[in-house]
């Protein structure tokens, strides 16, 4: 925020700089107006709704939308309503669930401002122009906007205005604000003030979301038109900056995570423990978002090159035509709408094609009106039977061979075997089989423990080299000891759930 007192000391009208600061604050104030308005207007609703704190529900809604706003899409309308309901229900436990849903929906729709054609809000404020004249101006803004998602669905996103209102840090630089928030968090954790630390961590998360949003826009523009974005300097700089940012944050947040984990484990007070556990969740979420952002950033370069190939290597035409964007669209957009309309009207009149006016005879009209409407086919058109062509089998080993090999390797857990013996037995069954058995045994030398752990496998094949030489006509190397290990599936499943809920219940478990 510029300092409001930088205006000149002239007594008559405040200088433009002071005025600008004032206008800025008025706009910030205006963004909160829809929230206050909810509480004022709830009295007009049919029904007794005064027990609900609408502004609180609205802020919670903005929170929810901001946090579920992912890189690609936004939040789902119904999901937000559903997740708002517990809070609404807590405000009036005696009321029906239907009413709770109605209230949640009403708040959300009012934040979108469904009733207006722009689906936005307008506030009027006054400024002094350069000539000292007082002008009233319209400030249009949105809090939650609806954006198109894949498959024609509609998603919700919070606007920058909403995020700024929510975080309460107007007009600040995204990067620096985030750094500040995180330094604050570290200090707070060191001093053991976890309550404040959580607030700071949440703010850091909002900042992270906002940062991702800024980047998403730039990348999207690149995909549309390579030339619309400065790929010589601005975007590469931004990407480098963002990558540095991600690397930096990642290191930073991992450090914080370790610290809080320690704090969580060492904390004795249950309340502290719970807060620390929540904090772990938040920081984990931050890390997840950073990783997501990073993978997007890495895709940006190839995307640019592919788009450049696609957009640049079109054959040039012999004669130059009219440049629709540069000579028409671009100059029209900055014009006042009154004047711009003249140009678009002219384009519309000549560019829409023609329509043959209908000429109806009364006789036809009567027939048309009396014809019953066509029954729509409920199931739609019949799908054609797909013509499938079998792909030729090109695997080295057949399914039967794999089965035989696996059967051979299905060893009892208390009786491991030497590879040489397995190979000999396999050779007796099928001369090709030893190759498959040897391959599986070598893989077992580095067993996929992580996968087995995640999938909750009961047993795992392993192979150990004890130094014995393999004596075999076809294979050389170590005569591995191949065996099966039994895994504690139940114990692993328990561990996994504990890990996922990240200590939320850990406090109680110990």
């Amino acid at each position, binding site marked *: 925020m510029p300092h409001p007192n930088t205006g000149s000391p002239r007594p008559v009208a405040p200088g433009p700089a002071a005025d600008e600061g004032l206008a800025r604050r008025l706009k910030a104030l205006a963004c909160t107006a829809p929230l206050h308005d909810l509480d004022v207007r709830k009295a007009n609703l049919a029904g007794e709704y005064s027990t609900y704190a609408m502004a609180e529900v609205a802020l919670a809604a903005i929170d929810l939308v901001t946090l579920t706003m992912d890189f690609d899409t936004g939040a789902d309308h119904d999901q937000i309503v559903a997740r708002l309901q517990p809070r609404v229900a807590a405000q009036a436990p005696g009321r029906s669930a239907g009413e709770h849903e109605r209230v949640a929906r009403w708040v959300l729709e009012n934040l979108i401002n469904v009733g207006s054609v722009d689906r936005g809000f307008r506030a009027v404020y006054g400024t002094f122009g350069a000539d000292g004249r007082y002008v009233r101006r319209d400030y*249009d803004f949105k809090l939650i906007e609806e954006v198109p998602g894949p498959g024609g669905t509609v998603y919700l996103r919070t606007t920058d205005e909403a995020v700024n209102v929510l975080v309460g840090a107007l007009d600040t630089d995204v990067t620096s604000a985030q750094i500040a928030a995180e330094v604050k968090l570290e200090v707070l954790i060191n001093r053991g003030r976890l309550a404040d630390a959580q607030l700071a961590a949440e703010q850091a998360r909002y900042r992270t979301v906002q940062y991702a949003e800024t980047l998403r826009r730039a990348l999207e523009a690149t995909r*549309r038109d390579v*030339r619309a974005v400065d790929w010589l300097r601005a975007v590469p700089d931004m990407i480098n900056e963002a990558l540095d940012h991600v690397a930096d944050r990642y290191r930073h947040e991992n450090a914080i995570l370790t610290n809080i984990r320690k704090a969580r484990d060492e904390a004795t007070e249950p309340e502290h423990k719970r807060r620390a556990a929540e904090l772990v969740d938040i920081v984990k979420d931050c890390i997840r978002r950073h990783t997501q952002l990073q993978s997007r950033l890495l895709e940006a370069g190839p995307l640019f090159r592919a788009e450049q190939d696609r957009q640049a290597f079109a054959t040039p035409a012999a004669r130059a035509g009219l440049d629709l964007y540069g*000579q028409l669209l671009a100059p029209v957009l*900055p014009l006042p709408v009154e004047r711009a309309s003249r140009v678009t009207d002219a384009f519309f009149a000549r560019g829409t094609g023609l329509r043959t006016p209908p000429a109806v005879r009364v006789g036809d009209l009567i027939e048309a009106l009396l014809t019953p409407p066509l029954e729509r086919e409920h199931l739609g058109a019949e799908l054609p039977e797909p013509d499938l062509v079998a792909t030729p089998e090109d695997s080295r080993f057949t399914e039967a061979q794999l089965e035989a090999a696996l059967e051979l390797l299905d060893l009892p857990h208390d009786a491991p075997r030497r590879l040489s013996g397995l190979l000999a037995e396999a050779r007796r069954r099928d001369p090709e089989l030893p190759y498959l058995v040897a391959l599986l045994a070598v893989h077992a030398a580095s067993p996929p423990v992580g996968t087995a752990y995640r999938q909750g496998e009961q047993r795992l094949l392993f192979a150990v080299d004890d130094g014995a030489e393999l004596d075999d006509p076809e294979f050389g190397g170590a005569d591995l000891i191949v065996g099966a290990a039994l895994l504690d599936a139940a114990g692993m499943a328990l561990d996994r759930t504990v890990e996922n809920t990240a200590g939320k219940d850990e406090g109680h478990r110990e």
Partner: protein
Amino acid sequence: MDDGENLAPAPEPQADRPAALTPADAADAARLVAFGLQPKLLPARDAEYADLIRRHREDPAFARLADAVAAGLGLVVLEVSPRAGMAVAAGEDSVFAVRMGDYSRRAASDSSDRFLHGLAHLAVAALAFPRPADLADDGYIGRITVNGVDAFVRQACRRLEERAEEHGENSDPASDAPGLEAAWRVYARRSATGATKDARRLAGSTTGIVGKAVAFLVDSGFLQRTGDEAGGTYRTTARYQLQVRDLAGSAAMAELLDLGVVPVGDGTASLLPPDETADLDLVAEAGLPFHGS
């Protein structure tokens, strides 16, 4: 009709007798124009249409007759070719012309809706033919999506917004003069989409307005729908290129020049995008409008 068919091969010595046109020829000429009035019909799909097109190209007297019929109906002939058929466009006062009020009832009364509908058509054309060369190249087929057009205009608006902020301008319009609001701002503050009760596109949203424009252009035989991704994907037809290149583009250009906005040369500086981009040295953007391929 059979008379016409029989006459077609006959007029080889037409140079000697240019006036020997019969009412049957007039009927054929009118039939050709009637084919032209069905913009989705292509000569390749209809043998009779293809014959008449061929006759128009080979028989100058018949061509003059057909052109005269079109002119009499208030139509402008853009091209007669096997690829585009008889491409005719409605003259300004013709009964075939599309009026904004018929197009959208809201646009008739609301000036910002009127502007947005017009802008949608301009933006569809601008994105279908992004470079001047694309518009000039007869073989070029443009591809657009509804969401792509919306995002493209939004991006342009956002850049103007950023530029206004950089220059410290206050782009909020005066309350008592809504007509002076910057055009980009009208688009920017209209929401991109919106949930409706019946899962259709919200008509007043910008994707709704662009969607209406492309649907209308499909009916005009200017676009063909190719898929449902990104709000609907479309490709252009030869007729659309002709219409934009020969009529709409120049008409809008004339109007713009009439407003005193000269996109090249020394117009009023504040309205000139190229000057401002030079100041900001946005390399990529400079390539878009003025130094593009």
